[in-house]
Structure formats: C-alpha cells, structure tokens
C-alpha cells in the first residue's frame, strides 16, 4: 500500500456519508477556458460535484490540492485531489497533456470528456495527438450517428462503474482498440461504454492511476438531472483512491 492510499484510507475511515463527502471534496474540475467547447458540460459537472475545486487549466500543478482538509482547516492539512475531470475538451496542448499524465500517475482518476465533436479539425488533431502520446489512446474522427440514416437507440450503454444508460450527445468520438505507442506495451484498454456498436467510453491504467475517456459527453446529462448520469458519477467517486480493488482487478 502506498503512502497516498494509506492516507486516503485512513482519512476515509469514517461513516459512509462522511467518506462520500470527503471524496466529493477531493475532486478537481479542470476548466479549459476557450478550449472547453461545451461549457454546459462544465456547468453540468460543476452542479453535480459541488465540492470540487474548479481550476483553470493553466493553474493546474503537479501536486493539486483539493477542498478537503485531512485534520484541521486552521492547521492547513490539505489533501491532494483524487479525481480530475476535464469536461468538453477541445484543443489540448502538449504541456497540459504532460501535467494531466503526471497527475494520473499519482494514483489519480482522470475523466477526460472529449468535446471534439464540437470543435474544429485542428482542435481534434491536437487532442488526438495528446491522447496518443501520453495515454496510448487512438481516437477516431467525431461522428454524428444520426447522419448515417440508420435508426439508433439513443443511449450509451455503460457497463462500469455502474450499469447505466445515458443519452448520447449527438456527436461521438469513437475509440480505436489498436492504440500502441511504439516504445512500450501499454495496459489493455477496457471498454466501459458503447453505442450502436461503437466504443465511446474506455478506461486504461496509466502508471499508478486510471484514465477514463468519454467520447460522448455526459456533463449535459448531469446538468439536465439525468439520474443515470448522476449515478455513474457517484459510483465512480465512491471508488476512492485508485488501487487494485477499485479497478476491479
């Protein structure tokens, strides 16, 4: 058990509601500014995670403190964030990609919600390059499922961390399974959500943390009060620090 997991477990040792409150305070909502192409998604997450610290991307540090004080507010025993959410992502520069990768490696959870379906081609390309470089993920060009003309069931079926159905947000970013950085093998990519036979949500171990990629935004569903979307987020936060059990290994 690492020091961070020990501290997390110790701090979480109270009652279940108290533990949940703590976990809610250990979230960071990363505001990409003009590169957040779905502001309503950011607002949806902000409404669903009132304890999260909302931080502009450029101020994100390698040791990101959260709203939770482990011992005493006056003494200033602030804790590190456990969950990082990047809603409605458009363009992502290399520097931010590196910082996100470092944070994930500190046993964090990174929920990366792609808004590439609502961004221009350049933004999509930078996002694709960043995800490939730092997370070994190959995303495909955004697509509008309805334009295919086929009648689709308008829900993304999530299998993890809760089995829920969440309405798709028109344009999805499918994920390829063939992502392989040249230099080293990477942990397997696990599909956690699909729609119309396309993989649009995956998770992958990244160092000591976990990346969750959402190719269909769920922030707007959170904002609209979708119970399944809230259940999905709460189930994720309830997992606490990343360890083998929380990852279902």
């Amino acid at each position, binding site marked *: 058990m690492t020091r961070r997991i020990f501290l997390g477990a110790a701090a979480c040792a109270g009652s279940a509601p108290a533990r949940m409150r703590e976990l809610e305070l250990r979230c960071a909502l990363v505001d990409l500014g003009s590169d957040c192409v779905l502001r309503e998604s950011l607002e949806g997450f902000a409404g669903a995670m009132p304890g999260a610290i909302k931080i502009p991307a450029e101020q994100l540090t390698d040791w990101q403190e959260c709203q939770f004080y482990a011992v005493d507010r006056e003494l200033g025993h602030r804790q590190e964030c456990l969950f990082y959410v990047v809603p409605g992502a458009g363009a992502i520069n290399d520097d931010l990609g590196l910082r996100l990768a470092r944070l994930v490696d500190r046993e964090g959870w990174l929920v990366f919600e792609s808004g590439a379906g609502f961004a221009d081609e350049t933004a999509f390309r930078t996002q694709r390059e960043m995800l490939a470089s730092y997370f070994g993920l190959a995303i495909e060009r955004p697509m509008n499922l309805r334009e295919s003309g086929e009648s*689709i*069931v*308008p*829900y993304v079926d999530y299998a993890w961390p809760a089995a*829920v*159905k969440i309405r798709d947000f028109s344009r999805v970013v499918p994920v390829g399974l063939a992502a392989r950085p040249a230099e080293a093998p990477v942990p397997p990519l696990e599909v956690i959500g699909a729609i119309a036979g396309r993989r649009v949500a995956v998770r992958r171990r990244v160092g000591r943390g976990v990346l969750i990629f959402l190719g269909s935004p769920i922030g707007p569903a959170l904002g609209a009060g*979708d*119970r*399944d979307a809230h259940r999905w987020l709460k189930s994720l936060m309830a997992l606490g620090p990343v360890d083998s059990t929380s990852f279902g290994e």
Partner: protein
Amino acid sequence: MKKSIGDNIIPKDWTLERGLELIKRSGYDGVELWLGDRPWFQMNTSDTQVRELRRKVEDAGLAVSDVANSLDWDENISARDPRIRERAMRHVERQIESAQLLGTDAILLVAGLVTEEIPYNEVYGRSIEALRTLAEKAGPARVKIGCENCNSEHRFLISPREFWQLLNEVNNPWVGIHLDVGNIHDTGFPEQWIEMHGRRITRVHLKDVLRHRGRSGDQSVYTNIFLGDNNWPAIRAALDKAGYDGWLIAEMEARYRYAPDQQLWDTATAIDRFTAAKF
C-alpha cells in the same frame, strides 16, 4: 413484462367468453377492461356482476391488467358544466372501485379535454383540482390513476414537460401517467417521455404511428407495432433505463377486414419480439 390487450378488440358480435378465450390462446397474460365500451362492463354493472366478470377473466387463465374507460371523451373531469364534471368524477370513481373488485391496481383516464370552446388554461386548473380529489380515493384503495397522454387527441399536455409539470402540481404518488407510445405523433419521441416520467409510468399502451401524415377523415394514423415510425429499439431501451417492468397493453386501432382474430396473434408476436429486444 406481461402483455395485455383491451377487451374492445373483441369483435362486436362475439361473447366475452369467446373473446377471452382468443386473448388467452393468442398468448396474452391479461386483458384491459374498458368501462362503458362493451355490454359486459357499464356504469350500471353491479359489484356482483363485476366480480363475475373477474371470475370469467380468471377462468380464461388471464388477469385484469387495468381498467380503462371510453366515457371521458363525452364526460370529462375538465368540463365546464359542473353536472358533466360530476358524472365524469363518478365514472372515474367507479373505475377505482372496479379495479379493486377486479384485482388490479391501475386505471386509465383522459385528464382534460381542450376544445375550441374550453381553453387550455381552464382545463389545466380543473384537471389538477379533479385529480387531487380523485387521488384521495385512489390512495386508500391502493389504485394508481394513470392519466393517458392523448396529445393531439385531447390537445392538452402535448409535451412531456407539460405533463411532468401537471403531475408535479397534483403531487400525489397515486397519480401518474399511462403512457401511450403511439399517441405522440409528430410532437415528440416516446423514448424521451419514458425517460422523463420514469417511475411515474403506471402502464404502457403499445401501438405504432405513421408520422407526418396527420389525421384526415376516417383515416387513422395508427398502425400495427413495427409498421409505423416509432423507434422501437429506442423505446425498449428507454423502458429498461426507466426500470419499467409492468404491463404492456396493446391498443390496436387497425382492424382486419377479414379474419379479425389475426390482429391479436400478430400483435402478440410483435410484443414478444419487442420485449425480447430482437430487432
């Protein structure tokens, strides 16, 4: 999910017993009884006769899925004339009483009827008042009142949010929505209604609809399941999402000119396929 069909599908010259036998044989689990539609179930049908009706249904190997009524179109709870309103309240109360006698826990009503004469806002207020009063009877009887979305037919509560708002204002757990997935026509998408109303759905009516055509003369826009424009895979998924596991009740308008019993067989097969999500 269990499947049911209305007793109003039974050919007019058939007896109830013959009709129930066909319903059972063609694969249904239950029957929806329509107060005021067929001679065996009218306002003057006594309690004893209603019990006898239940015995016949059960002897046929069926259950009563719910009690609907065909009287709301002439006597609605939103009528301006207090005497008509009183009659409307009475027949809904009779539905509640009958539901108890028949061993079911849901009734269907048309909650409000907007006409050229009676405007929307009047209908809205009266409907809420009437539903609150009826809920006081439904709760102790443990019978759920399902207000059917008749959309363009009653020109009222056209959108799911309007319906949601009405139910919020009634604010009683015994009042919900009897959702008809065929009634939404061009004004929306049934899967969105299901998603929005979730646990408030008391029963589901199934039929398909031909969108973009509208009603003209005696030409119906309704058709058999899978023949129209409803997105059935989406409806099936939405029911899953909403956790609906109750009765699916076929409300078929299209009658077969020849071999009228074929409608029941075809519809039962379609519902089985819908339930199994094999598209």
